């Protein structure tokens, strides 16, 4: 049965035992946590302190390295007397620019070695700092670029967008370039230091300096504690300590041997002589430990043959290398001499070259520019002056040959085919058709239909003709033809009854045909026929074209 907690509780009491127990547990936990916190804090604090100490010593050594490198460079440049001045400058610059001295020193060193002047290097370093802050490039890069520009290589300055072209940079003096850089990036460092990032960097620098100072102090304290005179003394003491440790371990090992020997029941009756012998052997083994093992092929008895062979091989190899070097130098010398000889011979040969002499004579004469160029080209080809020959060839070709050839080529080009050529005949045909249709429509050429060839009129025809005009709704032949869709130009009266009677009589007697009495003139409306023909020839949907606007 699922249990519910629905209940009527009777006679409730407050049991503080549970609460006290819980309180006790909580207090215990709290105390434990505090204790743990303290322990952890101590442990972590010790670890952190040790790590910081390590970092401090590292920072100090790095800084020392940079100082030593710069001092050495200053000394090599013969500027030792400026050492104090340089240190002071770097120190002040570090504070004013918030750039660490271990960054400033290499930058200053590169500028100093390039310029050879402390004053100039100081000026350039100040410029480099401004340019670095303004452009975002690191100080080492900017210093290197300035150092290169100082000796005429201005290519690196292009990336600072000074508003100068490559040619301008190349043509300007370094002083002008420096002035331009100063003008472009003036106040960049101060502006940067006013920003939060700049302030953070300054703070970071101060912390770094503190670390370096602590590192220095740590090293000094270690030296002092060891009672040494400087780092060299400390190193000596460390070496001595190491040796002492080795001695201690060896002595311990020896003591162990003595104890083992003494407490070994087998050795009780062996006497002191045997003990001394064993101890001596053990000591000897200790001393000989790590010594070169005996090599049957390479020992004093064999005269160290392997070593001697190796030394002999090395000597032989060195001699061979020296010989090869000497041969190479000799070959180079021989080659140079041969080249010189060939050049001299060639020069001498030109003096007796008839063809060349002819050309030179011709050149002295009165000739046109074109001829001169031709001769000069021939001469250049003869003397092997490839550059000149190439230039002259180009000039000649440009001046004459190429222009003429091009003109000739263009002149010889066939007429371009007219893509609409075939259209002319087609359009002519259309024009003819249109004219024909227009003529037919406009002139309404009358055509006379001969009735001579018509068949004889029958009684039915007569009856049809004689039918009352009122039934057809026409009174004239014109009306009649119009009623059947044809146009008649002349109004011809319909034959009367007597005409018809006479006609019938004559026809029956065979003396006359209907053509004798009836001449029908048909007037054809060419436009209507053309329209009808067009309608027949067309297919597809109608297109409505509307004109918009005026």
């Amino acid at each position, binding site marked *: 049965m699922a249990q519910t907690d629905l209940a009527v*509780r*009777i*006679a409730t009491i*407050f049991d503080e035992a549970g609460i006290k127990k819980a309180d006790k547990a909580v207090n215990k936990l709290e105390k434990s946590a505090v204790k743990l916190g303290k322990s952890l804090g101590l442990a972590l604090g010790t670890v952190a302190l040790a790590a910081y100490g390590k970092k401090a010593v590292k920072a100090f050594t790095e800084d020392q390295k940079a100082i030593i490198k710069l001092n050495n460079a200053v000394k090599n440049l013969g500027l030792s007397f400026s050492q104090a001045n340089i240190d002071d400058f770097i120190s002040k610059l570090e504070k004013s620019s918030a750039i660490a001295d271990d960054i400033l020193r290499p930058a200053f060193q590169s500028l100093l070695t390039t310029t050879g002047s402390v004053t100039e290097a100081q000026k350039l370093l100040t410029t480099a700092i401004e340019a670095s802050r303004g452009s975002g490039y690191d100080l080492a890069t900017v210093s290197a670029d300035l150092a290169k520009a100082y000796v005429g290589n201005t290519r690196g300055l292009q990336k600072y967008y000074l508003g100068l072209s490559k040619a301008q940079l190349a043509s300007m003096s370094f002083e002008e370039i420096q002035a331009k850089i100063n003008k472009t990036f003036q106040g960049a460092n101060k502006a940067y230091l006013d920003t939060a990032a700049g302030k953070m960097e300054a703070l970071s620098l101060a912390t770094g300096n503190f670390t370096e100072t602590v590192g220095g102090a740590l090293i000094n304290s270690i030296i002092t504690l060891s009672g040494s005179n400087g780092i060299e003394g400390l190193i000596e003491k460390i070496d001595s300590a190491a040796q002492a440790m080795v001695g201690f371990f060896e002595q311990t090992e020896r003591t162990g041997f003595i104890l083992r020997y003494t407490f070994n029941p087998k050795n009780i009756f062996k006497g002191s002589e045997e003990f001394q012998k064993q101890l001596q052997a053990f000591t000897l083994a200790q001393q000989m430990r790590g010594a070169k093992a005996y090599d049957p092929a390479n020992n004093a008895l064999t005269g160290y043959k392997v070593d001697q062979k190796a030394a002999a091989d090395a000597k032989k190899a060195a001699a061979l290398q020296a010989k090869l070097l000497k041969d190479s130098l000799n070959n180079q010398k021989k080659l140079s001499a041969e080249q010189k000889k060939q050049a001299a011979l060639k020069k001498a040969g030109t003096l007796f070259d008839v063809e060349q002499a002819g050309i030179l004579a011709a050149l002295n004469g009165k000739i046109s520019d074109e001829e001169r160029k031709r001769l000069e080209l021939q001469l250049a080809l003869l003397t092997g002056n490839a550059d000149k020959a190439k230039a002259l060839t180009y000039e000649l070709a440009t001046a004459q040959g190429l222009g003429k050839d091009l003109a000739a080529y263009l002149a010889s080009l066939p007429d371009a085919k007219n893509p609409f050529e075939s259209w002319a005949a087609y359009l002519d045909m259309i024009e003819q058709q249109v004219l024909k249709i227009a003529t037919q429509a406009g002139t309404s050429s009358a055509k006379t239909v001969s009735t001579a060839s018509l068949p004889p009129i029958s009684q039915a025809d007569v009856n049809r003709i004689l039918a009352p005009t009122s039934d057809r709704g026409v009174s004239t032949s014109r009306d009649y033809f119009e009623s059947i869709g044809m146009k008649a130009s002349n109004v011809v009266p319909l034959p009367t009854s007597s005409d018809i009677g006479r006609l019938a009589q004559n026809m029956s007697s065979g003396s006359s045909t209907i053509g004798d009495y009836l001449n029908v003139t048909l007037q054809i409306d060419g436009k209507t026929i053309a329209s009808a023909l067009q309608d027949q020839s067309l297919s597809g949907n109608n297109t409505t074209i509307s004109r918009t606007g005026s």
Partner: protein
Amino acid sequence: MPTEVTGALELRKALKEYAPSLAKESQKEISGVLRPITAKARGFLPSNEEAPSGWLKREGAKGRWANRYYDASIARRGVTFSASPSKANNKGFRSLAAIYNKSAAGAIYETAGRKSGVTGNFTPRLGGQLAGQGQKKTGRGIFRAWSEDQGRTNAAVIRAIEHTNEKVAALAKLGGGRLFRAVKAD
């Protein structure tokens, strides 16, 4: 208003350790007090005929509703009492005796409608009468019985405990501490 009895727990503990027979006697006396009210509470629960037909057990019912039904016998069996002290709740209070409505269906019948009112399709069909003080102590079964009891059972329980206390005191006076010579109970 719950009645607080100070020292009762210690008395009971002492009885269990040094006079187990008296402890049992005390428990029996309390049980005797609680039994009538429990029976009365059981009587308030409806029979299967009185309960809503849709809430009863259906043959062949499957899934989650297969076991969610009202059965008068189960519900009545779930209404019980306890004469021994409960464990302390999260505020540290313990009850020396209690009347329970343990079954799920009985609890539903007990509490349905006491928060949102007797409305809808189910609660009005339950019948019975919600009685008691406050929302948490109102119901159709045990709370109704407790409410109608008017505190008599509560008083009887306390009297039973006092009676035990008096017995202990009398025995102690009579026997000169003989009572506490008893061996510690297992």
